[in-house]
């Protein structure tokens, strides 16, 4: 079986098969989690308390591991004489700081649901009102997620088309195949977001 096609302007035949298999494998509709519109405030509160605990653990993990990266990277950079190693240790330090920041964010702030929960918790609303606001919030979130999926579908579709076109114009085999690969993966993402 020829691995690389002899023709310069058409994708290699094995690549067409790969893209075909990708599309078939992902023709199964994605099981996107949709919020339950009839979810009560009490259920939501229990979930959010659990989420806060998870965020706390995860946030501290990232802070500690980030600190280790920062300190270890600093020590390694001073000890090492190889420029490649020094470069990697500098990258460790940068990632260490990013990890500490991400950990602090996860621990103290969390995601949108958690922000909404903390806001409602501080209010003096009756439980029934809280459940009603929660229902409206979920509806609004669902609509935003639909719009987000549509925009992502268009974006990935355009990226896929651009990469396929660029690949067809490319003369270097390795770059051509890389562009077809990126195009194929973005086509797959486009199909996934269309469900």
């Amino acid at each position, binding site marked *: 079986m020829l*691995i690389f096609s002899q023709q310069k302007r058409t994708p290699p035949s094995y690549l067409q098969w790969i893209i075909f*298999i990708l599309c078939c494998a992902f023709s199964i509709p994605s099981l996107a989690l949709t919020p339950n519109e009839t979810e009560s405030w009490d259920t939501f509160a229990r979930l959010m308390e659990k989420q806060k605990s998870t965020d706390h653990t995860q946030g501290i993990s990232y802070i500690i591991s980030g600190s280790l990266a920062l300190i270890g990277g600093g020590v390694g950079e001073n000890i090492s004489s190889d420029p490649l190693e020094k470069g990697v240790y500098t990258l460790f330090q940068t990632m*260490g700081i990013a990890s500490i920041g991400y950990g602090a964010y996860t621990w103290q702030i969390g995601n949108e649901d958690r922000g909404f929960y903390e806001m409602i918790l501080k209010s003096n609303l009756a439980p029934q009102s809280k459940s009603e606001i929660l229902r409206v919030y979920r509806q609004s979130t669902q609509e935003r997620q639909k719009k987000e999926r549509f925009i992502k579908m268009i974006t990935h579709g355009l990226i896929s088309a651009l990469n396929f076109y660029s690949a067809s114009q490319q003369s270097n085999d*390795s770059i051509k195949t890389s562009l077809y*690969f990126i195009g194929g*993966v973005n086509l797959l993402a486009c199909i996934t977001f269309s469900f």
Partner: protein
Amino acid sequence: MWRSFILIVLLLFSPVLNASELSFSQNARTFESQTQSLFIKGLAFACLNSTQIPDDLPCNPALLTYLQKESLSLQALISNGSSNLEKIKKLLNQSSTQDTIDALFSKERILQIESHASLLFRSKYFAAQYLPVDIKGFSVVRNEANPDVEFYAVEDKGFRLQAAYPLTENLTIGLQSRLTDRKFIRQRFKLTDLATPAGKNLLTPKTYNFQTLEPSFSALVYQPWKVRISMMYANAGRYSERYDQIDPADELQGGISITPELLPWGELLLSLDYKSLTAEDSSLDKLHYGVSYSFGSMSISGGIDTHGISSGVFFSIQSISAGILYTTTKGLGDDSQNYTQTVYAQVGWQI
């Protein structure tokens, strides 16, 4: 059960202490027919049961179903000895000069390099890897009076595809296919042979391609401590040419792992695999023991086998990742002066 596992590991260590002398002419974690990421090298390739590999496709395709989110990323790995990369490439492209030959075999006693870049796409049921460049080279020159050279250089390009399906909550099956073009030189010769007419062909590369189909499964057999068993039938497929000195034979590979709940945070994995990494591996060489600990953005891996010892750290945050790995062919308690040390560095970017 924990004590039994430690006893088995200690029994395995004693052959490793004696095997380091045999591994002098090899790098501890670079092999002709293996292309794996930094984290997997750190595990001594004991990865058949690793569900969370941060920088590569799972070694066992059946474990794809444990991936938590889709990603498209670019990874690039290089080892020390990167100054030899161009020389190895020239040799493989048959554009080398006498200066290249002198630089490769006369100036340095041990020469090594591994460098590869790959595009990875991973999702819950399907994964693909494109390898546009993968170059490995190793050379050792002995006996100054009449130098003996042991040398290999390999260039691979190709794809790796994986698919997985969960049969039950604790049993998954998978399939992997590798589509590879390979160019290689693998020779043992006297340095003086290169000056003879017959010796000029010693460094002519051979090319061939192969397509493999490798089924696998993974089963969680005991929930406390997540005892997992995996098996994979590897290297089976179609080869345009079969070179027994470089391609390991078709074989059934197996592994067992546990995730003991010893530490309050993070995840510790202990794994033992039985698999060939080269065509010349004996039964003892096929045993690989790996340890990994994942905590926050950090993953630490360590591994030991008859080829050597490895230890590394890998960090991944948002779209950037980086790692460094140290390996040596010197065994524990070994006082020999003949050993190879290699440092690998890897960076990655999630697109």
